[in-house]
């Protein structure tokens, strides 16, 4: 058992922090207020190599192992306060790049991965529908084979990066009689007739990450746009979710570290009743609890990533990490606000946004309740 990063990983971590702190935090209050995606930041991250971290070099990526990827994303979360931008990057990596890498034909990989890695294209997936959220496989979008084409009909909701997307991996059922075994995945490019963005959605947090509903109306795609085989949609989705559940909260570790440091600094400088507020046990206890949650979160997330790096499928560990880290981040953001008092509640202190951004962590990539069902299910319940 070895819990240390290598010298190279430490150096990379420092580079990511320096890059993120210097390049990604300008005008964030305004961008959050206006629900504005940070296009320039997206391009800078791609140029730095973030979007391509786990993708092999032959497709333009960095070829990093999953632990190095987690290390870099944690550093990104520490240096970059635009949690929406980081969320958009995560969605792009885990729901578009990884499924293409794992299930795409060589031709599909060569066609799409270099563009996604370079940030020139934005990739998304479309699974959730108005009537199917946690019960994802009860989706109603249909696919029909007609000669050398598939025809897609249906609607999707809560689609991250929808307005930015150049390509979508759409999940649709080819054979509803087979239930989930009929679900297949199709690549649909922007501009394909019958594919449209039907409604922009507004959110409590992660407001710099765009979200919308999509509509597919007699949308025709060539047969070669099938991702994987017919009926392998559930496999593609679950594999994608496994990566996502392990990695998407790595940036939360960085954010929690940042909130801990900011709160400690404030508790040291801010004086009331003639002494720093950190000297009061009630405040010091909150700082200690923030640290305890951070340490436990790190161990859980690193373990899930390590198991994945060993070729395992850490279903249980990823679910445990997802539940714990997402809830820890919310509690830490609440504590940070409480320690900062009235200032913490003010937008200009940029702490209240952390709480709004953190709340969705217990919802996306499978709610806390679904993760607990997974864990209990592994105990035979």
């Amino acid at each position: 058992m070895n819990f240390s990063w290598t010298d190279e990983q430490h150096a990379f971590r420092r580079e990511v922090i320096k890059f993120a702190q210097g390049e990604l935090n300008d005008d964030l209050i305004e961008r959050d207020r206006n629900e504005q995606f940070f296009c320039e930041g997206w391009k800078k991250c791609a140029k730095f190599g973030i979007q391509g971290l786990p993708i092999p070099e032959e497709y333009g990526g960095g070829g990093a192992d999953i632990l190095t990827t987690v290390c870099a994303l944690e550093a990104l979360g520490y240096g970059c306060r635009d949690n929406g931008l980081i969320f958009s990057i995560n969605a792009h990596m885990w729901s578009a790049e990884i499924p293409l890498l794992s299930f795409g034909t060589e031709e599909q990989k060569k066609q799409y991965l270099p563009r996604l890695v370079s940030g020139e294209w934005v990739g998304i997936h479309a699974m959730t529908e108005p009537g199917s959220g946690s019960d994802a496989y009860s989706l109603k979008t249909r696919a029909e084979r007609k000669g050398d084409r598939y025809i897609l009909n249906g609607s999707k909701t809560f689609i991250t990066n929808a307005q930015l997307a150049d390509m979508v991996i759409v999940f649709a059922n080819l054979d509803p009689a087979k239930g989930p075994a009929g679900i297949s995945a199709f690549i649909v490019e922007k501009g394909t007739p019958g594919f449209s963005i039907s409604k922009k959605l507004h959110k409590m947090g992660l407001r710099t990450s765009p979200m919308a509903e999509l509509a597919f109306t007699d949308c025709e795609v060539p047969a070669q746009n099938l991702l994987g085989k017919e009926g392998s949609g559930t496999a593609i989705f679950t594999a994608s979710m496994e990566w996502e559940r392990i990695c998407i909260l790595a940036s939360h570790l960085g954010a929690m570290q940042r909130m801990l440091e900011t709160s400690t600094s404030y508790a040291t400088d801010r004086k009331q009743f003639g002494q720093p507020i950190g000297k009061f046990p009630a405040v010091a206890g909150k700082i200690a609890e923030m640290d305890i949650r951070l340490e436990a979160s790190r161990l859980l997330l690193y373990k899930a990533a390590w198991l994945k790096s060993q070729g395992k499928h850490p279903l249980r560990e990823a679910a445990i990490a997802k539940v714990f880290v997402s809830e820890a981040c919310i509690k830490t953001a609440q504590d940070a606000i409480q320690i900062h008092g009235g200032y913490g509640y003010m937008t200009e202190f940029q702490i209240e946004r952390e709480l709004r951004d953190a709340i969705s962590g217990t919802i996306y990539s499978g709610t806390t309740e679904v993760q607990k069902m997974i864990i209990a299910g592994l105990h035979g319940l």
Partner: protein
Amino acid sequence: MTEQVENVNVKDQIREFVREAAQRKGVSEVTDDQSLVESGVIDSLGIFRLVAFLEESFRVRIGDEEIVGENFESIAGIERFVLNKLNR
């Protein structure tokens, strides 16, 4: 002879796992060729439980791209998949 014993052992262990999964889903009987997904014995979560069981029981490694319906469609299909891996 050894290979035959091994094959029987693999199928028995898979049958036992599927039988328990079926019981939990209220399915009373599962034949070797019956579709486990269509009959509701194995759902999206169940596939990963099955993968974890196979990896642990038979010391095989199963890649993301192998977690597809054709490898886990039935008891007979799972057995073929595992034996192919063991004999590689």
